């Protein structure tokens, strides 16, 4: 069984293997499909229309499936690789080892936000941006510029304490665990981390920054933690609901996977530690 680990605990070899597998998917031309799929959903998911990947109950199972597919793709390159997660409540500064040159590289430089260290630095490196919102073809970050602080452990605890998974109107205006986790309301967890990283992570094409996977892996772990703490609660809605993916309905773009299929992550992988 694959074990997903905290990025702060990875060995030098595990870091090398992860980075090499990501770069190989990029070289093979497979990586950019994840960027365009994500952007297609995030720009198509609307509060009053069909919504699947974001601002809806299926935000969590959709991203669990999306990460699983990416992880399986990495494993086709190197079967030992699993997705690491970034616990941003603990590793919350720009000098965390996450941003060192042997994993994701550092902050963008002040002049143009360009990342100039690590395996994903450009331009002219191994990480050209093909699917992008504007003319800049290099990875950019502005750590801590768009918002000064990452969420704290207390912020996360306050969201994990919410008992109801999601609620009508099943969008960015909802009460409930899912929307507080996604960050459209309340203390703002997931959205705030995208804004804190800045650069491509602030855009609809956020998977251009490999930290996307480590961020969402931690969000996925927090969903598992919520399930562990509220075993009597489940995914909602369970009944057919207009524009929203109910428990036993399939999700685009796969059309063969339901939220119900994604509830138990231990069918696919485990985490090193509870939150």
């Amino acid at each position, binding site marked *: 069984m694959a074990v997903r680990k905290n990025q702060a605990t990875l060995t030098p070899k595990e870091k090398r293997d992860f980075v090499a597998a990501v770069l190989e998917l990029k070289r093979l031309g497979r990586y950019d499909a994840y960027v*365009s799929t994500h*952007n297609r959903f*995030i*720009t198509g998911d*609307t*509060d*009053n229309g069909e919504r699947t990947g974001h*601002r809806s109950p299926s935000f969590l199972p959709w991203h669990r499936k999306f990460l699983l597919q990416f992880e399986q793709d990495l494993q086709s390159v190197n079967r030992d690789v699993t997705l690491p997660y970034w616990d941003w409540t603990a590793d919350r500064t720009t000098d965390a080892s996450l941003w060192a040159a042997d994993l994701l590289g550092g902050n963008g430089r002040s002049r*143009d*936000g360009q990342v100039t260290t690590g395996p994903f630095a450009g331009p002219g490196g191994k990480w050209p941006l093909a*699917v*992008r*919102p*504007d*003319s*800049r073809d290099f990875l950019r970050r502005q750590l801590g*510029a*768009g*918002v*000064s602080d990452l969420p704290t452990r207390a912020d996360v605890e*306050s969201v994990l304490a919410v008992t109801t998974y999601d609620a009508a*109107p099943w*969008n*960015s*205006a909802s*009460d409930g665990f899912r929307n*507080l986790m996604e*960050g*459209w*309301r*309340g*203390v*703002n967890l*997931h*959205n*705030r981390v*995208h*804004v804190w990283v800045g650069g491509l992570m*602030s*855009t*609809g*094409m*956020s998977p251009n920054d490999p930290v996307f996977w480590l961020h969402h892996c931690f969000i996925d772990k927090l969903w598992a933690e919520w399930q562990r703490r509220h075993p009597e609660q489940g995914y909602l809605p369970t009944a057919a609901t207009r524009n929203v993916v109910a428990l036993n309905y399939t999700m685009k773009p796969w059309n063969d996977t339901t939220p119900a299929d994604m509830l138990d992550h231990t069918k696919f992988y485990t985490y090193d530690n509870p939150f």
Partner: protein
Amino acid sequence: MPENTTELTRRRMLQGAGVALSAAAGLTVIGLTGPAAAADPAHTEADAAHDGHDGHDTGGGFDEVYRGRRIQGRPAAEHQHHGGWTVLIDGQELHAMQNADGTWISVVNHYQPYRTPRALARAAVTDLQGATLLPIG
């Protein structure tokens, strides 16, 4: 960005209170977390004058030069009742979307709501640092 930090601190304070009270005062929470409290570092008095304080009252559009870039916005006729707008930067469309609470996000600020389409366009100009938008795919 001091304004942004101040705004966020205020928002978090209000929303932190909102979470604690949500069971008893759900409607109050919506009021506190609505457009007036959204992060909006680019918001100015001119926004308020032209667009109104209500995020839904977005008026008849805007056309100005901001930091050397021409930004334009107008309600999109086919989506008018859903709050759809067309926002342009130097004539190139910025993909924009309205949230249920009336705030706005764009393809370059997809996780950070702004109060008006004009503030959204200005934030995009700041982010672009002179780069040009690519056509919406």
